[in-house]
């Protein structure tokens, strides 16, 4: 009856503290499932390396000097330099011109602030809503959930045209408030579906027991349900951060000079500005990608749920 222990998946999602070190490292397979040996590892290694190669090559390019980038045939071994990274933030726009601030520090700051604030707001609103949908079904609960998911599935271009016109009328275009409000809305359907899928998995017995013992609804939510889905909350937040961090079209049309995010600035860098300075572009991309790659590793167990917006759990 009293199953207060966290669901196993929640523990595993947080890094798998209960699994022995060797198995966590993958050096020894968990009991009984190590069917394929090192041969499979070699094959998978080659395939994975080929698959990851485009990313790896960009990261390598970021450390190349200007001449190494232009070298034909491409150099695999070179003296690494941090010049490109320095030039992301300040460089001379013309030969022997004055060194100027490129504004990328601001764009990174914008990306971080906009993503963090919008995900935080969406997480608060979305978690309450998910709990509501999960525990207090309304009339037409499924219809609401369907409409919510539909708004997320729509092509961004469909949503952006009216928003663009409305932001122009209300003066929200190019402001932090406008873009954050839009991204909050963009994250909300995802958060609701993800958190609902986590709440749905909890055993209702514990809640019922707490209710019988006289806990209020609020207490049941904060003291019993929420602690059990902390891993889920973290996964949802991180997924939301990545989605917002990567988003392009909304930012392209609705962010002003002061509120421009990195993807937009990156696209503009490709368009004009620096022409064929691929090393510089690679440095921007590397700075932009590394957080995502690190986070992907931490999220591995929740990836399936995350990329399907919580509609497929396992």
């Amino acid at each position: 009856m009293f199953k207060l222990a966290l669901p196993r998946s929640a523990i595993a999602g947080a890094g798998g503290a209960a699994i022995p070190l060797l198995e966590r490292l993958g050096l020894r397979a968990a009991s009984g499932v190590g069917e394929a040996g090192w041969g499979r590892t070699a094959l998978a290694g080659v395939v994975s390396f080929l698959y990851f190669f485009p990313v790896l090559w960009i990261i390598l390019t970021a450390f190349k000097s200007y001449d190494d980038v232009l070298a034909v045939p491409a150099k695999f071994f070179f003296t690494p330099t941090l010049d490109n990274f320095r030039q992301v933030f300040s460089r001379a726009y013309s030969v022997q011109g004055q060194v100027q601030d490129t504004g990328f520090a601001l764009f990174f700051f914008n990306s971080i602030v906009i993503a963090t604030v919008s995900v935080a707001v969406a997480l608060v609103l979305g978690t309450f809503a998910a709990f509501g949908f999960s525990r207090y079904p309304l009339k037409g609960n499924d219809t609401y959930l369907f409409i919510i998911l539909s708004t997320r599935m729509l092509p961004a271009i469909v949503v952006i045209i009216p928003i663009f016109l409305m932001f122009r009328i209300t003066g929200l275009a190019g402001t932090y408030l406008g873009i954050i409000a839009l991204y909050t809305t963009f994250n909300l359907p995802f958060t609701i579906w993800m958190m609902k899928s986590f709440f749905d998995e909890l055993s209702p017995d514990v809640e019922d027991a707490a209710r019988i013992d006289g806990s209020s609804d609020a207490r049941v939510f904060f003291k019993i349900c929420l602690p059990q889905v902390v891993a889920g909350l973290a996964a949802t937040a991180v997924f939301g951060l990545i989605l917002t961090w990567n988003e392009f079209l909304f930012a392209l049309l609705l962010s002003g000079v002061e509120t421009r995010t990195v993807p937009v600035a990156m696209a503009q860098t490709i368009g004009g500005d620096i022409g064929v300075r691929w090393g510089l572009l690679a440095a921007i991309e590397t700075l932009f990608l590394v957080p995502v790659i690190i986070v992907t590793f931490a999220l591995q167990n929740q990836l399936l749920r995350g990329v399907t917006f919580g509609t497929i759990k396992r």
Partner: protein
Amino acid sequence: MERSSPTGGMAASPALSPALPSASPPAFAPALAPALAPIPRPAGRLLRWNNWQAALLVFVVGMPPAIALLPPAFSFWVAAALAVLLAATLVVNAWGRHTGGLLVAPALALLFVMNIYPLLWSFGLSFFNYRANRMKQPTFVGLQNYANVITDPVVWDRLHTTAIMVVLTVSVQMVIGFLLALLFSKQFPLRRYLMILVLTPMMLSFVAVGAFFRYYYEPSLGLLSQFVRLFTGEPYVLMQSVWGARAGIILADAWMWSPFVMLLVLAGLVSVPKYLYEAAAIDRAPAWRRMWSITLPYIRGLLLLALLFRTIEAFKLFDVVFLLTEGGPGTATETIAVYVYRVAFQYVKTSESTALTYILLFTVIVLTNLYLYLANRRIKEA
């Protein structure tokens, strides 16, 4: 659902107060008066915080003059203030009685304001002749925009392009994803780490992927061109021919999203009972037979879900195209999403573009409905 509060005796029940004005809404069953709703209701006061009917009246009466008389930038904030007032009274009224409604209301309200209302507004706009860069008052044209869009051969051409891209990219993703899943289906040393390398592209930004592949397809420095030059001795320009550009986009998109299919197929492979394979081994069933008769039936549902999900997403193909080719050469890779972007923001035919978006919206909603139906069926079966 509602339990009477421990302090039920103290919470003054409005129905029991002697001077209950007939105008006020009927109080709920007094025995169930919840703990969180001890709102004083002095007799005859109109300005109670739970009087949402009055707030609604103010909202309905106040909105039209506010919109008509004030400049747009100002009337928006007036409307917002009135809406907040209405929302506040509704919340106070529902507190403690409609927990589910209260929990979902803020999220639904935000979605409505920022998403559904703009969509409805653009639906209205699609019946007018309106261009965002003209000062002219929009005129009502009925279904003219829809008629224009449906009879426009350019739209059909772009839909045709989109269909080609969707079919090709999704099938490539399904095949590669399936093969990757088979590779990773068994447990082997370092699996977790190697899988991360494969899963990473899925989490990357479209812009970054577009920029990558632009670099790789570059005629003089690009790795692809250098690789081809090893054999032909000539620089290779992929993005110049129609099918080359399409192949370039499909390669980038498939590289990005094959891991998605892999994840779903892996989830299916885990669910296949081991004893079936053991029985097949005893019967000496060949490998293709094991695949066809055991594996496929078990992962069919998830394959279908992956197919639908990827179709919906590929239908929206915008960012990669926008960054890699901008629709070129000519209009060979201009998908419908890119075309809508052009109509709306470059040709500024605003209302025509909204009519177009409604066709997209309808398609996506139908596909999403199908997807959810299948996903729910799978959950129920489990």
